[in-house]
């Protein structure tokens, strides 16, 4: 199957037109804005074409809901992975409508505020809707990765404070979630032989043991990060420096919705394994406790919105752990407009930040609950920042040792040993080398020849022995 759109057995022109206007119109709008260089960042007036595009997209997506259960095959991208396809109807379609409509409503509410990069937001809308509707894991994964990249570019284009740091943080965190998702997809693909989401999840529900845990573990990691659950909410903290719509809709609503929808799809797997189920319940309970403590101790508006988003994801995780898939679906749909309102309110109230700084609540503080979470904060900080540097340092030492073995320079070889090993060990090793040096040519650089000869002798012995 090549680059064609085919719908079930009888392609319907109306359906293709609706799909085109739902997905292609925002993309064309994005391209148009980019090509025309209508840079809306910093302006206070929204380009008039944006509400029109969003209205067309919302209405088209809503109209697509009348085609429940229809599969639309797009094209085959990787020959081995089967055709990329979209599934119409179902919760994915509803969430796509709700999320697109939220952007339209948000746009109306924030007129007069700093304008976001609309070209990027429209691209994000297209890939997010593709992800909601995707019926195969490859399409969904690719859409999520592209969305993560688009989100990372937003702070750069908006030129907000610390924009480079924010871009890096967003990309790295969301990529970590994608890593979890990719592990799960690989596990599913290996055990079920298909990338079709419905078939793979259906077949995976018959899996047991370690294989199932790899899959659910990977999926839950992805969900945990995409719903900005603590402590992987670093990417959501970026919202404080972004424009209202970018921060509130793109960061605060869209990505968490994708995470929650993913959780909805894998709920049967999560609730199937008692260990995973109890673990998810425990995590959600701990998460709720932490969120409550954070809400009590930090009353800054955007921080409250972060905590509310996280609280919702803990609730959703508890619903998934207990197998309440329908409850999760309602939670996702009903909370979408509420969360949008919450985010816009927090973003529109930067003046409150001065009035409501970080206020430690005496009761909670007095009981030491915030102190309980402090070591976890620090531990996470070590993992995310210090561990990488530490491990890289050890890798550098290892390299030093490896280099010194074949280094033709006596000085650099010696230096490498001294850097790589504790002083006492380095001294004894160097002493041994010096004696070796005196015993042979007197030059350490010759050691490589001896080492090569030794290696060859060893190999010759091995070969002779094998013969």
């Amino acid at each position, binding site marked *: 199957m090549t680059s064609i759109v085919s719908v079930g057995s009888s392609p319907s022109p109306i359906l293709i037109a609706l799909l085109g206007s739902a997905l292609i119109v925002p993309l064309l709008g994005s391209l148009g804005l980019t090509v025309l260089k209508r840079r809306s960042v910093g302006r206070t007036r929204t380009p008039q074409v944006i509400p029109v595009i969003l209205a067309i997209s919302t209405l088209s997506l809503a109209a697509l809901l009348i085609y429940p259960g229809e599969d639309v095959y797009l094209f*085959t*991208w*990787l*020959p*081995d*992975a089967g055709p990329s396809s979209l599934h119409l109807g179902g919760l994915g379609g509803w969430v796509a409508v709700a999320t697109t409509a939220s952007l339209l409503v948000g746009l109306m509410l924030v007129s007069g505020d700093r304008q976001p990069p609309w070209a990027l937001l429209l691209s994000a809308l297209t890939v997010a809707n593709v992800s909601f509707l995707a019926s195969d894991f*490859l399409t969904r*994964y*690719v859409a999520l*990765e*592209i969305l993560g*990249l688009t989100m990372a570019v937003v702070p*750069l284009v908006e030129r907000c404070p610390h924009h*480079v740091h924010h871009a*890096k943080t967003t*990309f*790295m965190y969301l*990529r*970590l979630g994608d*890593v979890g998702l*990719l*592990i799960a997809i*690989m*596990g599913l*693909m*290996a055990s079920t032989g298909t990338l079709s989401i419905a078939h793979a999840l259906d077949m995976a529900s018959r899996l047991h043991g*370690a*294989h199932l845990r*790899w899959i659910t573990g*990977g999926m839950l990691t992805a969900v945990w990060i995409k719903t900005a659950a603590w402590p992987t909410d670093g990417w959501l903290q970026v919202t404080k420096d972004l424009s209202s719509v970018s921060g509130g809709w793109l960061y605060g609503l869209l990505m968490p919705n994708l995470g929650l929808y993913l959780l909805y799809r894998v709920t049967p797997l999560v609730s199937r394994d008692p260990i995973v189920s109890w673990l998810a319940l425990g995590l959600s309970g701990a998460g709720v406790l932490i969120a409550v403590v954070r809400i009590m101790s930090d009353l800054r508006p955007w921080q409250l919105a972060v905590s509310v988003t996280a609280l919702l994801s803990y609730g959703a995780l508890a619903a998934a752990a207990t197998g309440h898939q329908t409850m999760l679906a309602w939670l996702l749909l009903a909370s979408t407009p509420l969360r949008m309102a919450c985010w816009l309110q927090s973003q529109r109230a930067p003046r409150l930040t001065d009035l409501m700084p970080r206020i430690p609540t005496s009761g909670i503080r007095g009981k030491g609950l915030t102190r309980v979470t402090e070591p976890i904060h620090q531990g996470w900080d070590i993992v995310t920042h210090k561990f*990488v*540097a530490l*491990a*890289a*340092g*050890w*890798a*550098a030492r*290892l*390299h030093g040792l*490896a*280099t010194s*073995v*074949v*280094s*033709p*320079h006596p000085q*650099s070889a010696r230096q490498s040993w001294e850097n790589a090993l504790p002083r006492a060990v380095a001294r004894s090793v160097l002493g041994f080398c010096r004696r070796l040096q005196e015993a042979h040519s007197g030059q350490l650089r010759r050691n*490589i*020849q001896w080492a*090569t000869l030794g*290696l*060859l002798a060893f*190999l010759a012995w*091995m*070969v002779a022995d*094998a*013969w």
Partner: protein
Amino acid sequence: MSEVALCIVIAEPVAVAVALLVLSRQMAHSAGWWAAAASLIAVAFAFALWPGPNQGQVPVLTLAWHPTARIVLGLRCDWITHPFLITTTVITALSIIYALGLHHAGHHAPAFYALLLLFGASMSGTTLADNMTLFYTFWELMLITSALLILVWGDASPGSPPRRAVAMKYFLVTHAGSILVLLALIAVYNQAGVDGFSALRNGVKIPEKMISTITLLFLVGFGVKMAVFPLHVWLPDAHTIAPMPVTIMLAAAMLSMGVYGILRFPLSLFEGAQLTSFAVPMMIAGVASEVYGAFMALVEKHVKRVIAYSSVSQMGYILFGLGTLTQRGLTGATLHVIYHAMVKALLFMVTGIVVHATGKRLIHELGGLRQDLPTTTLCAVIGVLAIAGTPPLGIFSSEWMIFSGGAETGALALTAAAIVGTLLTVAYALRFLVHLFFSDVPADVQVRSLSSAVLLPMVCLTVLTIVMGAWPAPLIRWVSHGTSLLLGGLR
């Protein structure tokens, strides 16, 4: 026609190289243009070989050289050869065009370009050779020409390691690997009694206990050329000191010769069942190389070394894919060779432009170059996103196939480790991009103007990276023809 093309791909660059050496005075000013033309002709003839395998007619050239020893020199272009041949010829041509813009060679330009052509021809010869004698001859020629290029034209700026020492280290370490390959070839020849690959393809009886030894020798020998951890020790210095066009050829084309060797020998000679004991160790070694290389790239301060260590990491992905011994894994690994060649050449070209334009080599001395070098910044962004495996750019599809091959073996923990390792790739790639182009501008950075000959190959590679990534299906089908012939026809 195909047989003629087979000969011309190697003979034409060699002939131009000899002419450049002999007529060096007369061709002093036009040497680069002659070399560029010769390398582009080689590319055209490499593509001209395509219809042969596609129509089921594999072009072969033979010459009985030593009848008593049953040594018949032969050239052959089959499905396994062709992707590597195209990769090496294209990279050679782009490197030579890039060299034109940098004016690297000064007064010795004819010799420099002649050696570049010989280096490229030796890589083409290695892939086209259809017998062990010719294979090893080209294999060694590849080493000699590249070592000479490092020795004579290596970076002699203050603070850099002496180029003589680096060239010696490069020669000795990679030659040690070559000796292991030679031992394995001799062992195969002793058992089979012939040195032609065609005869070997028809099946030879080798005792089981010999298979392990031969495979180990091949893997370690070719592993040195691939520069996987811990056999990579020659790579960082050689990549740093070599002149930029040579670095590009080393990283983007020569490393892939190690992969070709593994595909051509252990994986072609033996069946999957005979190599099962090597699968998990290869996958573990692949993950180790991936993680180690990425960590080193994360802490290196010299911009060329960052990209150099990235090669160690990327070769880890390839080794992991080869270790899966599955069709998906092998196709992914071969695909990764092609994508890695494009992206690595692109990133080294970006690095070369940055070093050439600013005169600075350390990452903390550079910054804010996006304003002065906008085209280079755009190409760097694409290169960095590609090496980080971001869809729809090329490396994503090869990594997808490598990881799905790993999962297919049932080694989910190892596959998960390899996938988690990709985060480190993202980390060092972002560090490179942000430090060079998006951080604050250091006070003393002056940017020189650039020749369009430097920008042209870089832009070409950027476009190729985008197009071949967004539309990978033809490439995957092309590569999977070859990998379906491996491991005794594969499972």
